């Protein structure tokens, strides 16, 4: 198929950016979206133009490195990551607009690449269970009810990609935060720090310039790992309890 791409080009954080149009031809529907961009970049290089900078690493939908707003949707039209999106989701002749995540808390680095280190700092604030290496007890001394273990797992699948923030009109990081609070809060190991964790993480979230949550649900709809919206209610409950 033949497509027209409109891609955000910006040479650096302080430079002026713009959408630039590139036609691409003979795209196979078995290509992944990023492979389609690889082909474009090979062409640009051959023509002595600078290729488009974008992030990706595992290309298996698990590392959370890839991003991209595709026609205004975080990770594009399917419930998956950009690297797992395939061209069969598009049709011949389509125009596709490709932009970076846009959020105060994710400053732009170059072209389609943004800085998501705010997420690391939220984890630093309290997204862990404090246990010294070597100090752990025998694993099976600790029973975890299956439904709790399953819920902990479901919320631990967050890959830290930031699509929830990009999709949210307020650029809130509450889904990411709620996923971590729920993962650690469901487990018996996570109880000791449960109250302090939620307070510290929320404070850090706010300090990073993420917006507030208005329950619009765009985050969960965009999340490639289908983190449910109810982790935000869990987050709020834990927060109120910790404060009281």
């Amino acid at each position, binding site marked *: 198929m033949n497509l027209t791409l409109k891609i955000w080009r910006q040479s*650096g954080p302080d430079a002026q950016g713009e959408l630039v149009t590139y036609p691409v031809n003979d795209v*196979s*529907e*078995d*290509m992944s979206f990023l*492979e389609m961009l*690889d*082909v474009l970049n*090979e062409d640009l*290089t*051959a023509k002595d133009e*600078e290729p488009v*900078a974008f992030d990706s*690493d*595992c290309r*298996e939908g*698990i*590392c*959370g*490195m890839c991003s991209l707003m595709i026609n205004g949707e975080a990770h594009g039209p*399917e419930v*998956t990551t950009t690297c*797992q999106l*395939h061209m069969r989701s598009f049709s011949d002749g389509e125009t596709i607009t490709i932009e970076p995540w846009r959020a105060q808390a994710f400053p732009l*680095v*170059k072209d389609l*690449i943004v*800085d*998501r280190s705010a*997420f*690391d700092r939220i*984890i*630093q604030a309290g*997204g*862990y*269970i*404090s*246990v010294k*290496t*070597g100090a*752990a*007890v*025998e*694993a*099976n001394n*600790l*029973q*975890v*009810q*299956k439904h709790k*273990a399953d819920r*902990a*797992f479901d919320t*631990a699948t967050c*890959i*830290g990609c930031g699509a929830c923030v990009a999709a949210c009109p307020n650029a809130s990081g509450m889904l990411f935060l709620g996923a971590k609070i729920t*993962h*650690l809060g469901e*487990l018996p*190991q996570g109880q000791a720090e449960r109250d302090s964790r939620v307070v510290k993480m929320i404070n850090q979230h706010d300090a990073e310039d993420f917006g507030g949550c208005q329950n619009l649900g765009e985050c969960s709809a965009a999340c490639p790992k289908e983190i449910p919206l109810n982790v935000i209610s869990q987050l709020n409950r834990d927060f109120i309890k910790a404060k009281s």
Partner: protein
Amino acid sequence: MPELIDNLYSLGDQIEDTRAPDVPIAEMWTKAKFDNKLVNPTNRRKLSVIIVGTGLAGGAAAATLGEAGYHVKSFCYQDSPRRAHSVAAQGGINAAKNYNDDGDSIYRLFYDTVKGGDYRSRESNSYRLAEVSANIIDQCVAQGVPFARDYGGLLDNRSFGGVQVARTFYARGQTGQQLLIGAYQAMERQVAEGTVEQFTRHEMLEVIIVDGKARGIIARDMVTGEIETHLADVVVLASGGYGNVFYLSTNAMGCNVTATWRAHRKGAYFANPCYTQIHPTCIPVAGDYQSKLTLMSESLRNDGRIWVPKSRDDVEKDPRDIPEEDRDYYLERKYPAFGNLVPRDIGSRQAKVVCDEGRGVGPKVGDFRRGVYLDFASAIERMGEEAVKAKYGNLFDMYQQITGENPYEVPMRIYPAVHYTMGGLWVDYNLETTVPGLFAAGEANFSDHGANRLGASSLMQCLSDGYFVLPNTIRDYLASGPFEPVAEDAPEVLEARKTVEDRIEKLLSINGDRTVDSFHKELGNIVWEYCGMERNDAGLRKGIDLVRSLREEFWRNVKVPGSATTLNQSLEKAGRVADFFELAELMFIDALHRTESCGCHFRSESQTEDGEALRDDDKFAYVAAWEFTGGDEGTFEPPVLHKEDLVYNFIQLKQRSYK
């Protein structure tokens, strides 16, 4: 000048590991921990450790050494430590817990590791790995890693290729991610404590060696392009494997050999580079634009059945229309005891065999169809679709996402792909390389898996190295520190910086006609064709010539757009590919010199009547550790081979049999 063999390499002195205590194997690690010197807690803060890599090995080491109070600097090329490629591991992690009372023990895991590695690993290291394995699970559970559990709330296990006990712990199909998040969170906790400094989007490009000791690294800030000097008392490389030398592999796009290769050029021996593992269950190549291959967890082999049509005439038929009697379940037929659960090397090679016979399925790649069926029809009948979904749902979804086919209805197609590299920097029992103060951990070292790694054993090794081994052995090294401070403008530092700067400058100035990727693809094809699943003398010699001439063209004709002082992904790739070219030559030489077959290294000249790998223990029961002898960028002088004899005191060498 020592005599050149085959005009390719020369033979140097024997080497050996002198660090494992001379006591019975079950007491070695306890004794070593006791013998290793201690560092007073108040001195630790004055001692600094650089760790390149934030995967399971590097992340776990950073967290633990930070916790112990050392000053740690941690580096990764991704934008967050949590994205290291360990995140992609699906299947699970082994541990000798014997929760199922099915006869597992430390000794059995040790035995399986050595046998699985086709008797080419060091006993002392493999034993320690098995010994430490149980602690890993305890540690991870305490951190909140959500392993699968049964209805009683206890940890669940499954069995994995090549063994007959259920000792694999898993977190649905995302074991690596969950373990890595555990290590990452522990490390971030130390970042908050101020013991770990984190440098993301930083690529290490050179090691700094002063007075014969590793004292730091040169790294490039991948956002600003700035070349930075980082100094420390000790340097750890936990930079992962080099499977991307094949271009197409299950590794992440950025996986590279640069960190370990730069160390090799500075004196660290590189061991067994030709031992590369080809994983039997990957999604086949679909087209020449393909950027990477995707692994389907081999846990699928527990319930899926692998087959091809008996007759070549059936390969284009809809598989559902091929009756049972016309199907060849070739693994079940050839290996009745293990069936579809044979070790990876055997599973992979047999897939190649049936495809070479013209019985492969799926689209033609070159002259052959490269695919075999992995069929869940009988599992769905036996367990019901819901149960299959609960166990493998995410893998099936992934398959459908990539191929556009529904695996609940049509059998999946799979083919082997490069997956793991057993070779790596040579290390002793303490994980120290031949350069004092330079340690290597995780997939970056060669230590525990011999010529073939068992499924679910890499995660185990990485975490064993990171949480338990390094923190104990580095302490012994650091006890004699802090070392004399190194000045930022010391000649050794300036020389390392200059090497990096000159190379970048050179890559940018060639301005030829071909893109980096086009070279990388061609290199990958050569390595896959002549140093892949099956190797022979003529092919390996041809491969060396092809690699050399392509490398010569690379340094004359590569085109790297952009500048050195901004984020420049073409430049990053160019540096990595340049190092792959040198590594590739060493892989070929290593594969050529080892005229036996062992594990994943299959020389067609050396096979049993049944077509299995035939070892030659009299000649080759050694680790091949290669020394770099010089050469400008892009060339290298014939390397020197140092042999470490493998002595088996506890396990008797046998011809592997999985019949």
